[in-house]
């Protein structure tokens, strides 16, 4: 993308702004009236989220769209955030100067990348309505907010401003705004509903930004609110240096000419990730460049040779120079639990499963794949599932068919996981939505419009793997649901229907109601476990109750085990039955012998969780007779989990020691081996009967 930016920068000098805009509007996102509005919203929201993330502020974003003249499609967009604001002296540059972006040179995962963003919106407004964009900015260290109208002189290609001043920014409740930015822009645009709409864009944005509170007031004055579901800010994104495998010739050239390093070895070590001093020497040897050569003075041939050495085309002793992988801690995945929350917030449904893969590297670029699936009521069962695509937390709303993420979904045979899919290919059908998020320092798009991800065999494979694993979770869920429905039926049978039959038969024959226990035992012929997990509004705890029924003709004794989210910071309270810990997230109770027809119920609560964090408790048993509603404990698996646990604790210590000087390769390997973080994920593997 750097090439594009440079080209645009030079373009900007040569052609009039209007011409520039006309030529590039398709990839600036202003090629149609409905899309222009979405683009403008997107630029504003992206900036707000980026700014808040950088300043470690929990974002509160408000978007309001008003139709000013429905005949001429004139729309006013107002966007407000609670970010750090922009100092007065920078406002003009940010909004009036192309390519004034603070993160343009840094390589790391962020939404804004080019520094055209918001200036493009200002330009578009100027060109379509002739009006300036009103900006109000408040920074924490000043009492008043700076206001200014920014426009563009289309003939001189220069920013213009007017109405500069200061004012007190009063909030509706009478208090003063602490910090934040507000933009009021007037443009020719069209408000639409549907799959490609401002509404859908904000909805998707809220899914992948569970820490943001977003309000949208649509042109009808209707207000939509997506509340914050976590107080946790996304992990701070670290900048990393480019990796030799991902560098382009132009960038290499620029880096060299701008470098003040005295010699090439230093230049390579200081400006690239994954290059040790030995690797630097070897690269130079392979490229036949002197170690002490000054980067600034390199020749055109040298760049090419060095690039070839980077890519392993020029070898040393018939072997490509070995480079370390770039560090992957620069990525900011959303993480499973938060995707879960984000998904269940905007789609009200029962079953959500998510999967975050360990970060990995393709062509020198760290990346990480996350997928989520929501399944259940309220979604159309006979339509293709909704595909929610994201790159670096930015919703992708166009060109679904041509996108790598869609192709990965289409390549999975979803029939084996319980969804309809003609011929086992294509987007599956069913009451579900599938979310795919790619986080990467260098997202490759199919075109400059940045709407679809370009093919990459490694990435597609990684997405597929995540989807398959998630699919297995879905299948297990559906199987479990089926089993539970069956158990539920049996309960209805013996608790309601059989007693009703006995009572009615007795009354017709005018005889006493017979004792039912014999019939019931014969009908059930099983031991049944029934766990319920429910959020308690009063105590703000998750209450779990487990009941075991012995509907057999013999006495039975069991040890019951239950999964619980210990890894997510939950604490078990009011556990009167006692029991003991078997592994992290697995608790066990040895129960007294259950006589035929006898039932035992015990309860406990979980604290330290939020509503929706834990909705389903898996039950396992040790004992000879099968328990319906529970899985037989797989002792080997339990053993395995305990071993993994021991190993993980060990590794954690090692990586802490190494943190300062962590070799990038070690970091990524480390990450890859750490088992999935949530207890639910790990426990899904239990249950030897499947």
């Amino acid at each position, binding site marked *: 993308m750097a090439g594009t930016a440079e080209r645009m920068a030079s373009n900007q000098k040569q052609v009039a702004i209007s011409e520039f805009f006309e030529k590039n509007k398709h990839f600036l996102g202003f090629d149609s009236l409905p899309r222009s509005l979405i683009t403008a919203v997107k630029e504003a929201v992206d900036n707000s989220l980026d700014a808040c993330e950088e300043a470690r502020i929990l974002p509160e974003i408000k978007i309001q769209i008003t139709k000013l003249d429905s005949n001429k499609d004139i729309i006013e967009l107002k966007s407000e955030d609670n970010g750090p604001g922009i100092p007065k002296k920078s406002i003009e540059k940010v909004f009036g100067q192309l390519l004034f972006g603070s993160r343009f040179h840094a390589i790391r995962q962020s939404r804004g990348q080019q520094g055209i963003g918001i200036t493009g919106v200002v330009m578009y407004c100027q060109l379509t309505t002739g009006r300036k964009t009103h900006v109000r900015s408040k920074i924490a260290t000043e009492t008043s907010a700076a206001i200014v109208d920014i426009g563009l002189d289309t003939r001189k290609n220069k920013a213009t401003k007017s109405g500069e001043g200061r004012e007190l920014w009063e909030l509706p409740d009478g208090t003063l705004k602490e910090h934040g930015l507000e933009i009021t822009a007037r443009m020719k645009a069209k408000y639409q509903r549907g799959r490609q709409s401002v509404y859908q864009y904000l909805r998707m944005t809220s899914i992948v930004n569970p820490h943001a509170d977003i309000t949208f007031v649509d042109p009808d004055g209707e207000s939509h609110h997506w509340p914050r579901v976590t107080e946790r800010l996304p992990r701070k994104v670290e900048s990393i240096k480019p990796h030799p495998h991902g560098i382009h010739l132009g960038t290499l050239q620029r880096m060299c000419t701008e470098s003040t390093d005295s010699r090439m070895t230093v230049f390579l070590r200081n400006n690239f990730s994954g290059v040790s001093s030995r690797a630097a020497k070897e690269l130079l040897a392979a490229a036949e460049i002197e170690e002490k050569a000054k980067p600034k003075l390199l020749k055109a041939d040298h760049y090419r040779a060095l690039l070839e050495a980077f890519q392993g085309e020029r070898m040393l002793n018939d072997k490509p120079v070995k480079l370390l992988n770039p560090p992957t801690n620069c990525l900011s995945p959303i993480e499973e639990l938060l995707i879960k929350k984000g998904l269940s917030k905007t789609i009200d449904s029962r079953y959500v499963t998510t999967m975050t893969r360990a970060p990995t590297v393709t062509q020198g670029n760290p990346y990480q794949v996350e997928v989520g699936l929501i399944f259940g009521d309220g979604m159309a069962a006979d339509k293709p599932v909704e595909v929610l695509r994201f790159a670096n937390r930015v919703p992708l709303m166009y060109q679904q068919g041509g996108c790598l993420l869609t192709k990965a979904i289409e390549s999975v045979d979803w029939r084996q996981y319980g969804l309809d899919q003609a011929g086992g290919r294509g987007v599956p059908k069913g009451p579900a939505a599938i979310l795919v998020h790619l986080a990467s320092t260098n997202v490759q798009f199919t075109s400059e419009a940045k709407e679809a991800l370009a093919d990459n065999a490694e990435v597609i494979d990684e997405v597929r793997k995540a989807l398959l694993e998630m699919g297995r979770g879905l299948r297990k869920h559906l199987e479990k649901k089926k089993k539970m429905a069956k158990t539920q039926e*049996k309960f209805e049978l013996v608790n309601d*229907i059989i007693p009703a039959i006995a009572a*009615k038969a007795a009354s017709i*024959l005018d005889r006493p109601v017979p004792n*039912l226990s*014999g019939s019931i*035992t014969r009908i059930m012929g099983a031991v049944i476990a029934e766990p319920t997990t429910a959020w308690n509004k009063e105590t703000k705890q998750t209450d779990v109750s487990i009941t075991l029924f012995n509907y057999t003709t013999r006495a039975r004794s069991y040890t019951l085990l239950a999964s619980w989210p210990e890894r997510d910071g939950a604490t078990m309270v009011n556990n009167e039955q006692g029991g003991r810990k078997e592994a992290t997230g697995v608790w066990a109770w040895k129960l007294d012998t259950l006589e035929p027809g006898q039932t035992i119920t015990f309860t406990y609560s979980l604290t330290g969780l939020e509503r929706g964090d834990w909705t389903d408790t898996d039950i396992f048993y040790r004992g000879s007779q099968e328990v319906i509603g529970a899985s037989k404990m797989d002792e080997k698996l339990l053993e395995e989990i305990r071993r993994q646990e021991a190993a993980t604790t060990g590794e954690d210590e090692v990586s802490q020691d190494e943190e300062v000087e962590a070799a990038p390769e070690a970091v990524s390997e480390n990450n890859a081996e750490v088992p999935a973080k949530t207890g639910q994920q790990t426990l899904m593997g239990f249950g030897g009967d499947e």
Partner: protein
Amino acid sequence: MMSAMHTSEETKTALHAVVEEMYDKIVKGEPPTMTLPVRTKNNIGFDDKLGVYKYGKKRSIRDATSLGSAKQLLRALHVVEFIEEMIDAGKSSTLREMYYISEAWGLGKFSSQNESNNLAEDLEVVTKCMREDFKLRPEEDGARMIGNLTLRERNRRGEWMRINARDDVGDSGYGVPYNVEEEKIELLEHDINFIMAIETGGMFDRLIENGFDEAYKCGLLHLKGQPARSTRRILKRMSEEWDLPVVVFLDGDPWSFRIFASIAYGAIKTAHISEYLATPSATYLGITADDIEAYDLPSDDLSSRDEDALKAELSDPRFADPWWQEQINMMLELGKKAEQQSLAKYGLDFVTDTYLPEKLADLGLA
């Protein structure tokens, strides 16, 4: 002729036996059950004595080990209770009314009308009683009849009314009530040589307009498609009590064949009461498969459903005789079916002037 009806006490005792089976099972510590004959074509056999098809020996046990069949048992109990209440109160209800009344039965309520109809039949089969004993009426009204025959019907005030089905009725004929047992209808006298049962209303009206009943001294009975029980029952009574031949005039398609089988030998669903409903002496007049060719009738291609129905009929014991096997195979070969009214190709009078006289002459009836 014995009546199909049972006394109130007999009916109640029979119903109680069903309830006792369930009750006793529970007392023994077993799941409650209901035992009933298998009601498919695999379990019907020819009863030489009665000359009709009846259910065989195969029994199925519906036990309360699954939610579905347990609910069936509970519903059966509610229906038994409901019937007893009606018997005691001297009331009757339609099957549809019972379906709506079941709304108040909680766990025992029906989820479809079909379910309540089937359960009423189940109870008939196990108790060997008839729907009329249960005070349950079908929804469909009975058939229409025209011809010089006289009967007595007891009206709602309990008075007997004498009706001649030619002189005392309008163009639509005498309407057959749902209960045609002796307590309700008595067959008095007639001056006809045979009875003709007709599938469609159009053809029935055509024959009346053309004065066919007078010209050929016959009674005409409109079946209204698949004939109601009362229609089959009155046909049987007339045929037996007056010793009259019965001819059946239907469309020429697989479904009409089934209508004939149910008239002559008994329907699979009501094989438990075949001896009351079936008229074994009935003869199939037309439209036959060879009529389609012989009279060059306008015809339609058989659909795949039609073909499946014909193939199923080949293995149906009621069609086991050579004549039917030939007709069915012929229709399959032709791949065609034809309606009664396709005879109009040759004019409105063709059916009464040519087709029927020719067919009846073959049987020695004209």
